[in-house]
C-alpha cells in the first residue's frame, strides 16, 4: 500500500438539501403566481405545464410547501374577489349568466392549477392534513363569491324568481338553471341545502299554499285534483331537469301537504263534485286520481275510505228501509246486487283493488243488509225466482256467477237460520210443483251452502231431493204392479219424509170418488212395501190437471190446486151449488175454501165458475155455477198457483216465532258446551263465547242468553258461584 497523501475525497450520502438561494423560493413563487394570473386571465396558452409543475415540485422539495400553499390561496382569493365584483356589476338577466360564466372559468382554472400543484397536493397537504387544492378552490369560491353579501341574496332571489316564472307558465333557461344549481351541489351538500334547497322549499310552500287556496275556492273537486296532479308532475319534471334528485321527495312532500293534505276534508266532502258525487256517477278517472293523490298523504286513504263507508251505509240504509223498495223482493235483492257490482267496479277500476276498500265495502253491506229483518226472506225469494224461471236459457258459467253473487249476499246475513227456514219452504214449493228450471243449479247452490255453513245446514235440504227421486221410483213400481190403472186418471205421488220438509198441518178434504180410490190403492201398495210407516195426504199442497168441456164446445185443460179440483168435480153432478153445499161436500176449511172459490170465480180470464151475486168477495150465502161462456186463447189454463210469495204479516210473525223457538235449544246447547269445557266462567265471557259460537247461524241476543242461563240454573245444569256473583259453575 502506498503511503499517499490523504485526499479530500469523500463519497457523501446523497442529500436533497441543496444550498438554497433564499431568493430562490421567491423567484419560483413569482413564476407560479404569474402563471396563475395568466390562467385566470384566459391567457394560459403560452405556459409550459412541465416547467410550472417542476417549479411547484421544487418548492415543495425544498421545504417551501407552506409558502406555495399560502400563496396559492392568497392569489386565488384575490382573483375571486375581483370576479365577484364583476358579477355583482352585471345587470338584470345577465347576472346569472355572468355568475355561471365565471364559475365555469374558475373551474377550468382550478383544474389547471391543481394539476400544476399536484405534487404539493399529494405530499405537503397530505402530511399537514390541510385542505386539498380542488376542494379549497371550491371553498374559496363559496366564501368569496357565493357568500359575498352583495351576491348571496341576489343569487337566491334570482333563482327563486325564475322558478316562480316557470310555475306561472313562462319558459326559462333550464340549462343555465341546471348549471348554477349544480354549482351549489358541487360546493357541498350543506351549501346546496342551506343556500338553495331550504329557501326553495319554503318559497314553494308559500306558493302552493296560496295557489291551493285559490283553486279550492274556484274549482270543483275533479278539476282541483287534475291541477294538483299537474303540479306534482311539473315539480318532478323540474327536479329531473335542474335540481338534485334528492330534492324530489322533499318538494313532492311540500306539494302533497299544501295541495292535498291541507284540503283533504274539504275536497272529499265537496258538494256536487266530491267523493260521493264521483261514486254516484261512476267517475272512474277522477276517483282513480283521487286515490293516487290521497295515498301520498297520511290518512289520505283513510279519509276516502271513511267517507265512502258512511255514504254506503247511508245509501244502503235508505235502500233497505224504504217501504217502496220492499214491495218487490226480487227487485230489492237485484238492486242490492247491482249496487255491489257498481262499487266492486269502482274499487277494481279506480282503487286498484285495494283490500282495505274491499273490506270497507263488505262491512258496510253487512251493516245495512241486516237493518231490514226481511232480508233473509227476500234473498230466498230472489233465489226462488231465479231457480224457477230467471235462469232459463243461461249458460252454466253464468248460472254459477249469479249463484256466487247470491252466496255473497248470504254471507252478509246475521240471521242465517231465518234464511234457512225460508229457503226450505220455497224449495219445497219448487220441488213439489216441478217448477225448477235446472236441477243442476239447485244442486250447485246446495253445495255452496254446505261449503259455507257445514253439513247440518244442508242435510235436510238434500233429504228433500232424495225424497223426490225416491218418489219417482215408487211411482214406477206402483204403475208397474197395477197395469190396469193405465186407463183412467193418472196419480202422481210424492212421498215426503216428515223431518226434512217444512211442517204443514194436514188439512182435511173430501176427494172426488175417482181420485180417492186411486189414493187408497197407492196407500196399500206403499204400506205393503214399507211397513211401520204412516202416510198422511197433504191436500193443501197438491195440483191437478182437468180436461173441461164448456157450453159452446170449448175444450180446455185446467191446471188447478187439489182443493180447486174437489170443488170443480162437484159440478159434474150438479149445475148449481151454494157455498154451504160446497163446504159440506168438500169439508175444506172456510178460509181455504173462500180463497179457492175466489180464484175460480173472481179472477178475470180465469173465471171458469160464475158466482151470484157478482161481488168481489165470497159470502156464505153465495151460489155458484159453471161459466159456460168461458173462453181463453190458450188450451191449457193455469188457475191454481203454488208460487212462493212474500209472507203476509201474520205468516211473518209465525215464522219469526218458530225461528225464535228453534234458537232457544241452540243457545242452551252452546252454553252447556262452553261450560262443560271451561267448568267456571264469568258472565261477560259466557255471553261473548256463546255469541261467537252461534255467529255462523244468527246473532244471539244477550238478554235471551241470560234467560237461557237462568233456565239452566233452575234445571241444575249450572250454578252461581257462592262468593263471586259474576261466575257460573258447571254442574256435572
Amino acid at each position, binding site marked *: 500500500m502506498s503511503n499517499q497523501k490523504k485526499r479530500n475525497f469523500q463519497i457523501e450520502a446523497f442529500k436533497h438539501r441543496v444550498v438554497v438561494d433564499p431568493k430562490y423560493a421567491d423567484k419560483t413563487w413569482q413564476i407560479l403566481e404569474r402563471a396563475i394570473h395568466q390562467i385566470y386571465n384566459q391567457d394560459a396558452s403560452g405556459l409550459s405545464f412541465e416547467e410550472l409543475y417542476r417549479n411547484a415540485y421544487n418548492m415543495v422539495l425544498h421545504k417551501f410547501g407552506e409558502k406555495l400553499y399560502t400563496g396559492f390561496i392568497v392569489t386565488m382569493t384575490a382573483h375571486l374577489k375581483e370576479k365577484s365584483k364583476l358579477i355583482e356589476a352585471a345587470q338584470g338577466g345577465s347576472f346569472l349568466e355572468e355568475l355561471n360564466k365565471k364559475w365555469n372559468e374558475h373551474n377550468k382554472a382550478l383544474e389547471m392549477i391543481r394539476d400544476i400543484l399536484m405534487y404539493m397536493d399529494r405530499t405537503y397537504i397530505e402530511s399537514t392534513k390541510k385542505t386539498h387544492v380542488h376542494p379549497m378552490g371550491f371553498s374559496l369560491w363559496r366564501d368569496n363569491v357565493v357568500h359575498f353579501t352583495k351576491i348571496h341574496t341576489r343569487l337566491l332571489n334570482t333563482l327563486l324568481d325564475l322558478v316562480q316564472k316557470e310555475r306561472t307558465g313562462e319558459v326559462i333557461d333550464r340549462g343555465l338553471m341546471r348549471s348554477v344549481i349544480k354549482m351549489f351541489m358541487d360546493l357541498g351538500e350543506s351549501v346546496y341545502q342551506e343556500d338553495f334547497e331550504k329557501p326553495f322549499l319554503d318559497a314553494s310552500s308559500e306558493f302552493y299554499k296560496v295557489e291551493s287556496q285559490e283553486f279550492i275556492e274556484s274549482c270543483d273537486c275533479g278539476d282541483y285534483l287534475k291541477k294538483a296532479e299537474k303540479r306534482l308532475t311539473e315539480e318532478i319534471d323540474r327536479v329531473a331537469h335542474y335540481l338534485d334528485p334528492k330534492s324530489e321527495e322533499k318538494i313532492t312532500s311540500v306539494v302533497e301537504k299544501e295541495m292535498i293534505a291541507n284540503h283533504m276534508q274539504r275536497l272529499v266532502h265537496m258538494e256536487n263534485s266530491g267523493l260521493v258525487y264521483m261514486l254516484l256517477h261512476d267517475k272512474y278517472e277522477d276517483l282513480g286520481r283521487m286515490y293516487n293523490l290521497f295515498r301520498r298523504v297520511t290518512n289520505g286513504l283513510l279519509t276516502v275510505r271513511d267517507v265512502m263507508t258512511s255514504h254506503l251505509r247511508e245509501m244502503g240504509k235508505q235502500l233497505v228501509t224504504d217501504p217502496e223498495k220492499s214491495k218487490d223482493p226480487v227487485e230489492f235483492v237485484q238492486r242490492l246486487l247491482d249496487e255491489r257490482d257498481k262499487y266492486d267496479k269502482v274499487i277494481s277500476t279506480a282503487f286498484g283493488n285495494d283490500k282495505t276498500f274491499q273490506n270497507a265495502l263488505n262491512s258496510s253491506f253487512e251493516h245495512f243488509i241486516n237493518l231490514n229483518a226481511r232480508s233473509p226472506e227476500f234473498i230466498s225469494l230472489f233465489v226462488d225466482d231465479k231457480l224457477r224461471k230467471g235462469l232459463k236459457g243461461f249458460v252454466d258459467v253464468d248460472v254459477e256467477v249469479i249463484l256466487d253473487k247470491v252466496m255473497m249476499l248470504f254471507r252478509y246475513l246475521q240471521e242465517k237460520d231465518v234464511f234457512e227456514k225460508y229457503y226450505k219452504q220455497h224449495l219445497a214449493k219448487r220441488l213439489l210443483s216441478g217448477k225448477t228450471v235446472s236441477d243442476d243449479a239447485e244442486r250447485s247452490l246446495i253445495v255452496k251452502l254446505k261449503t259455507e255453513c257445514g253439513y247440518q245446514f244442508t242435510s235436510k235440504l238434500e233429504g228433500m231431493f232424495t225424497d223426490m227421486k225416491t218418489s219417482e221410483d215408487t211411482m214406477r213400481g206402483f204403475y208397474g204392479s197395477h197395469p190396469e190403472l193405465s186407463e183412467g186418471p193418472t196419480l202422481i205421488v210424492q212421498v215426503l219424509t216428515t223431518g226434512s220438509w217444512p211442517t204443514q198441518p194436514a188439512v182435511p178434504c173430501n176427494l172426488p170418488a175417482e181420485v180417492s180410490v186411486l189414493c187408497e190403492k197407492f196407500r196399500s201398495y206403499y204400506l205393503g212395501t214399507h211397513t211401520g210407516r204412516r202416510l198422511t195426504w197433504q191436500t193443501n199442497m197438491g195440483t191437478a190437471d182437468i180436461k173441461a168441456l164448456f157450453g159452446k164446445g170449448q175444450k180446455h185443460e185446467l191446471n188447478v190446486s187439489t182443493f180447486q179440483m174437489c170443488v170443480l168435480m162437484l159440478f159434474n153432478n150438479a149445475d148449481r151449488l151454494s157455498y154451504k153445499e160446497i163446504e159440506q161436500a168438500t169439508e175444506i176449511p172456510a178460509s181455504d175454501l173462500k180463497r179457492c172459490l175466489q180464484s175460480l170465480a173472481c179472477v178475470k180470464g180465469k173465471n171458469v165458475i160464475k158466482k151470484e151475486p157478482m161481488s168481489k168477495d165470497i159470502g156464505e150465502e153465495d151460489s155458484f155455477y159453471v161459466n159456460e161462456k168461458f173462453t181463453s186463447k190458450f188450451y191449457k189454463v193455469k188457475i191454481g198457483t203454488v208460487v212462493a210469495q212474500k209472507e203476509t204479516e201474520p205468516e211473518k210473525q209465525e215464522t219469526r216465532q218458530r225461528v225464535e223457538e228453534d234458537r232457544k235449544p241452540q243457545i242452551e246447547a252452546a252454553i252447556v258446551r262452553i261450560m262443560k269445557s271451561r267448568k267456571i266462567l264469568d258472565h261477560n265471557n259466557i255471553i261473548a263465547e256463546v255469541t261467537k259460537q252461534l255467529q255462523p247461524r244468527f246473532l244471539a241476543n244477550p*238478554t235471551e242468553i241470560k234467560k237461557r242461563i237462568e233456565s239452566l240454573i233452575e234445571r241444575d245444569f249450572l250454578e252461581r258461584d257462592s262468593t263471586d256473583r259474576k*261466575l257460573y259453575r258447571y254442574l256435572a
Partner: protein
Amino acid sequence: MDRIDHLFNHYANRSSSHLIDPEGIEELCSNLEVPHTDVRILMLAWKMKAEKQGYFTLEEWRRALKAMRADTISKLKKALPELEKEVRRPSNFADFYVYAFRYCLTEEKQKSIDIETICQLLDIVLGSTFRAQVDYFIDYLKIQNDYKVINMDQWLGFYRFCNEISFPDMSNYNPELAWPLILDNFFEWMREKQA
C-alpha cells in the same frame, strides 16, 4: 228436657200424629202474643230447622227450645227478642233468608213460589230492613207478566240487590252483568217511572 216435651205435647195433642199442626201453631202464637204472620214465628221455625211448613216435630221443638233455654211459654216469649237479634246478625241472616224460601216449598220437587206468596214473604222477611226496595219490587211483581213464579236464584238475587245497590237511584246497577233477568226488567221499569 221433660218440661220441653211436656210443652210440646200441650200443642201437639190435637193432631193424630205426634206433631204440632197449624192449629197448634196458631194457639202457640196467641200464647206468645205474637201475630200468626209475624216474622218471629218464621225465625223460630228456622231455629228449629223445621222442615215442613205449618208443622213442628218433637225433635225440631226440642232443638230450638233447648238452644234458647226455654221450657215454659213465658221463658220462650222472653227469649224471642234475643232470637231476633241472633237471626238478624249478618252471618245468620243470609242463611235465614234462604231458609224462608225453602220453607214455602210445600210440594215435593217444587222449585218456585207463586208471586203472591213471594210478595208476602218479602214483606215479612225484608220489610223491616229494606222497606222501600220491597215495596217497589212488590209493585213491580204484581204488574209484570214475564214471570208467574220466582225461583231461588231470583230470590237470592233480590237480597243481593238490596244489599249492594243504592236505592232508589240504582246508579251502580249494571244490567249487562250477571243479575237475574227479572231484576234487569225491574231496573228498566224503575227507570221508566223516574223519567
